[in-house]
């Protein structure tokens, strides 16, 4: 593996990518409890680890990798990767790329909406998503106004009914509603009780 000539050397004269994988590898093997690994001396920046590949006492060239050891190594590898991922996803580089991706996604969506609104809806004489939103917004606004008015009428009606029946208020919520309600023409209400 040749090192890229322009890449800046990281700590210990190793480029960041090799350094990263060396750390993960070291962490994985160490986590698995394996004291040394063979075959890394030939890779720049990946030092050979003593104790492996020399003894010849196992069919795997010195290290008897059991499934259990492999699992531990895998667990340690995941742990190392998770730590790197967390660190990277907090970095300004990641946040900048996230922002760029979001901006592109929004631009694409706006272009699609614009195209559908200007071309497709007129071609097929149908309502576009944009016009639907406008209509729904208007309906929602009217609905909110109506609900507000109905709530006020409901409060006033409750007050009138209470005055007519002469009963005290049953719950605190009603009391709260009463305190909020505006002053009402009591005399008029008393003269004309609402029929239900």
């Amino acid at each position, binding site marked *: 593996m040749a090192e890229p000539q322009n890449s800046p050397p*990281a*700590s*210990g004269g*190793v480029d*960041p990518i090799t*350094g*990263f994988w060396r*750390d993960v590898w*070291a*962490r994985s093997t*160490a*986590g*698995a*409890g*394996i*004291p040394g690994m063979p075959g890394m001396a030939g890779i720049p920046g990946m030092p050979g680890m003593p104790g492996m590949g020399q003894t010849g*006492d*196992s*069919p*795997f060239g010195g*290290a*008897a*990798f*059991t*499934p*259990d*050891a492999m699992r*531990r190594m*895998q667990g*340690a590898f*995941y742990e*190392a*990767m*998770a*730590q*790197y*991922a*967390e*660190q990277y*996803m*907090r970095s300004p580089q990641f*946040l*900048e790329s*996230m*922002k760029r991706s*979001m901006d592109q996604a*929004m631009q694409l*969506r*706006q272009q699609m909406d614009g195209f559908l609104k200007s071309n497709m809806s007129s071609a097929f004489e149908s309502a576009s*998503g944009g016009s*639907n*939103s406008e209509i*729904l*917004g208007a309906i*929602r606004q009217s609905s909110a106004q109506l609900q507000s008015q109905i709530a006020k009428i409901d409060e006033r009606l409750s007050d009138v009914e209470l005055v007519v029946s002469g009963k005290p208020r049953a*719950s*605190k*919520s009603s009391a*709260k509603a009463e305190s909020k309600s505006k002053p009402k023409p009591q005399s008029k209400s008393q003269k004309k009780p609402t029929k239900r």
Partner: protein
Amino acid sequence: MTQTQTPFGMPFPSPVDFGSSGFMGDPTGAMKAWQTEFETMGKKLAAMPKVLEAAMKTKKGSTPHEVVMSESPVRLLRYTGKSDKRHGTPVLFVFALVNRPYVLDLLPHKSVVRQFLSAGFDVYMMDWGVPSPADATKTLHDYVEGHLHRAVERILADTEQDQINLVGYCMGGTMAAMYASLHQELVKNLLLMAAPIDWSSRDSLLLSWTDPQYFDVDSIVDTFGLIPPAFLGNSFAMLKPVANYFQKWQGFYEKMDDERFLEDFFAMEVWSNDNIPIAGEVYRDFVKYGFQQNLLVQGRFPLGGKKINLGNITCPVLNLTADADHLVLPCQSTPLKDCISSTDYTAMSVKAGHIGLSVGSRAHKDIWPKATAWMGERSAPRSVD
């Protein structure tokens, strides 16, 4: 603990001692171990039909219920499981708007709903439903003061009670706290599960990602209207990418011949992939006033024309947190204690993650019996007619 410095400056902990068994020497032992491993692999492959069967059998929710109120797409569910109703004050679950609420009733042995039914409560659930483009302009105020308030009024009318027990989970917990602050007279007890209240800590990844410098929530909402479910689902999965995209599947392979595990696994998979969109205006409110400006703990979170003042909460409060919660860190929930006026405040924590709080076996063994007892002691007894 000794540490190794990496080129990126992140310290690794020292190698963990995994014991001395089987990594070097004894080639015969290693060969035997591999032979056993291949045999196990064969057994797992033979279990594939069971895996498919378990996947096909997966249901959404486990306890029978009826729909007592419907305001499309929102529904109010009442659970009808058989139980000896001992408490008069009903319980209403308020779940988050970003996923489906049946995680609280995932499986019979992992159902928070059943815990409350067994404890003698009348149990209701807000099912917010799947918002359509027509719901994109709904605000947090529409949900809290609209749907939730009408559901509470309906439950109180049906059960002939004056007050209700609110149980809020995650974002639903924040909404329940807001509701309690606005209608304290209607809330008997408030139980919050991993509810974000304070967004001042920068430890959460979500808080880094929603930094106003990088995340323009206004543009996103104005462009999309409804926030796409894939966006939300992938964001949550990316909080733990190695666990969600690799370790989960390794764990699945390890236990795929265990039928009980398969049932649990597929139930969780179905739920976690059942993402729904969220109304853009709600998302804007939550991200802007919560994540970015942290207005709730300051008593300045706007809802309708009012400001939410958590100091209005005077009822007993039980605040549940999960130690390993990466979505809502415990430090985002615990400041509630200092914001409310309740004299009866209890906090409990469990060693679990965000979802483990509702489906974890440890939570069901240690936390929920205590939580239901806590609520039972503080609820009105059921009147005998």
